[in-house]
């Protein structure tokens, strides 16, 4: 070993490392620093023993405190459930018509409904409930099946045109391509697109025999729709499948069959009611 070099100014030994001609003095660390280091090692060992730490195949060591992220989450969830238990009970027990009163209950239902909606409904109706072609916008004041809290709750409970719930709403837009001539379809298409442009007043709906004979039964005398059949208002600005002539022609020729699943069997009563209140409160509820 070569003799250690000394810094001429302080007479202290240097480490021998040199950066740009600057050398470091070999200053010893304080001893307590070493003890602190040992203490952290001991702390680490205790920690490893106390908490789940060592990986095994498919599991980990348990730790003598018995703590786990899962059980602490469960405890948290339970705590929240307990805190909301009374609100939850009123939500389930109250008459539907009374649910709108009570600021706290309503707030709770809206918050819970929003969560239920995001998890179960947004994939079809959109995260903002704005809908898309074939999937109705739930924010507007136009309802295929009625906009009262009762109708909305019924729809969400039983769904529409599904095969799983015998109480589901069931009526469909027939495919007129099988019964009507091409010309008739073309003329009906033209008529409906004119309706769409809201020229209702100029158009005498009663005098259009094609429409009266084929369509009025469901869409109504004035083509304003029928909520008990889910037949849309053809005179308003809102179109589920589009108001351009191609879409309308396709609707008349092939029919439409929008399916909405029933949620009665899948969601708890509290969730159902909460999401109904939420949808009703989105802006169009009657």
């Amino acid at each position, binding site marked *: 070993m070569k003799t250690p070099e000394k810094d001429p100014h302080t007479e202290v030994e240097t480490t021998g490392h040199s950066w740009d001609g600057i050398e470091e003095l070999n200053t*010893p660390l*304080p001893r307590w620093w070493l003890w602190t280091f040992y203490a952290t090692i001991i702390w680490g060992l205790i920690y490893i023993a106390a908490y789940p730490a060592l990986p095994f195949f498919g599991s980990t060591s348990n730790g003598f405190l018995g703590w786990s992220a899962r059980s602490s989450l469960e405890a948290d969830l339970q705590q929240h459930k307990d805190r909301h238990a009374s609100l939850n009970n009123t939500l389930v027990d109250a008459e539907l018509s009374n649910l709108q009163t009570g600021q706290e209950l309503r707030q709770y239902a809206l918050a819970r409904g929003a969560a239920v909606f995001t998890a179960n409904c947004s994939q079809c109706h*959109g995260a903002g409930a*704005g809908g898309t072609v074939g999937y109705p916008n739930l924010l507007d004041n136009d309802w295929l099946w009625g906009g009262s809290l009762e109708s909305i709750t019924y729809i969400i409970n039983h769904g529409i045109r599904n095969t799983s719930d015998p109480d589901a709403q069931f009526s469909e837009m027939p495919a007129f391509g099988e019964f009507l001539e091409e010309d008739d379809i073309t003329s009906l298409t033209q008529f409906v697109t004119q309706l769409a442009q809201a020229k209702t007043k100029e158009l005498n709906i009663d005098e259009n025999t094609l429409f009266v004979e084929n369509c009025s039964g469901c869409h109504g005398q004035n083509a304003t729709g029928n909520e008990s059949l889910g037949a849309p208002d053809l005179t308003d600005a809102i179109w589920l499948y589009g108001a351009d002539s191609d879409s309308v022609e396709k609707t008349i020729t092939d029919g439409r069959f929008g399916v909405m699943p029933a949620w009665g069997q899948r969601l708890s009563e509290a969730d159902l009611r909460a999401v109904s209140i939420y949808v009703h409160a989105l*802006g169009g509820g009657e």
Partner: protein
Amino acid sequence: MINKFETSNALYKAQEPVFPRRVSGPFRRLKWAVMAVTLGIYYLAPWIPWDRGTQLSDQAILVDLANRRFYFFWIEIWPHEFYFVAGLLIMAGLGLFLFTSALGRVWCGYACPQTVWTDLFILVERWIEGDRNARLRLFYGKWTFRKWRLRITKWFVWILISFGTGGAWVFYFTDASNLARDLWSFDAHPVVYSSISILTLTTFVFGGFMREQICIYMCPWPRIQAAMMDTNTLSVAYRSWRGEPRGKMRQTGRGDCIDCLACVNVCPMGIDIRQGQQMECIACALCIDACDDVMAKIGHDRGLVDYLVLADEEVESAGGQPVSVWKYIFRPRTFLYALIWSSIGIGMIYALFIRNDIDMTIRPVRNPTYLMQSDGAIRNIYEARLRNKLGEARVFQLEITGGKGFLLQLQSSNQAKTITVPADSTYLQRFYITVPKDHPAAKIPLTQLRLWVEDIENGNRSSSKTAFNGAPE
């Protein structure tokens, strides 16, 4: 002595015990005064009452973590106003720059908690075990009954002080009088007890045993400060040109320094100031007091060890006249720092006073950007976040300015026209703005709107800008 250069091959170094001697003089008195004030503020501040009505805390200074509120006398800060706290931190930082460039390490020497508590602990130590020489004897003596008795008494008093320190801390975070009661009945939250224990332990260890080690090895501040000091910064220094060559009292041809080691013996950091500027020196000025005392006794001028700047050392050692330290305290650099510091302060005070007690932010719900009603009207959805900063519930009303024909409706179960926001809380209100289909705003992508929120009782208003999205053809 801490900073004696030595050559050893050991990898680790044991802590050198330091036994600071009692000293008296103007700087020592100043330090006692600073200690009384800082400790007084620390222990008493949480107990100052302040009336804020029945619903809010009546503690003048409170960091209410649970409810996310910060109270400081008449000021109440909510989490969204955290920039005030950021501003205070910036001021604290600049304040340290200011003090460092003007007075060097005054923070370290006088006001740092580590210094203040260590000082207090040394005081206790001296009361119980005696001054430097007695302590030295005790330290190196055998573990007799007397030694045990003194040690245990000292540790006990230290622990009491430490417990008081940790105990006072928690009162800043929850209602002090309730917490004090819960503390003794063991009903307080475990976090309270663990905070107190940790702070008790750190105070005991840092003040009683680690002392100068904290400053030398753990604290980043001496390193940072070194970067802010220049040749005109005050520091405590030894006038070597006056003192050297040092020698015993009777020796002839010596300088003013009689090598009495008074400066070394009083030093809480255990260094010899005569070695020149050292990182270990916290500039507590006790050696100035000690040396002045000796100089007075032997009939020399005071100031052999004194507050000096590096630039003066050269001037003075070349025979120049000493320059008044005030010249270095008031110089452009310190004025500039003071200016920046106070303008931030004034800015913050101004911002505090123009704060409105109603606060509204509007968020347009952009999913979807707009929607059509069955009659072709265009609707936008918004969320207003209303903050009521008063201690009682208030009723607000929303209103649009900046255009006709905009219909504003609140989401509510009963067609309500007003919004009630509970005391000291935030409320989220969803609302709609609708225009008929032939309204100009229905057809253009963006129309700017201004929304007003008004307290219907006293007419206080505040506004917020937002936009309306139409349906371009």
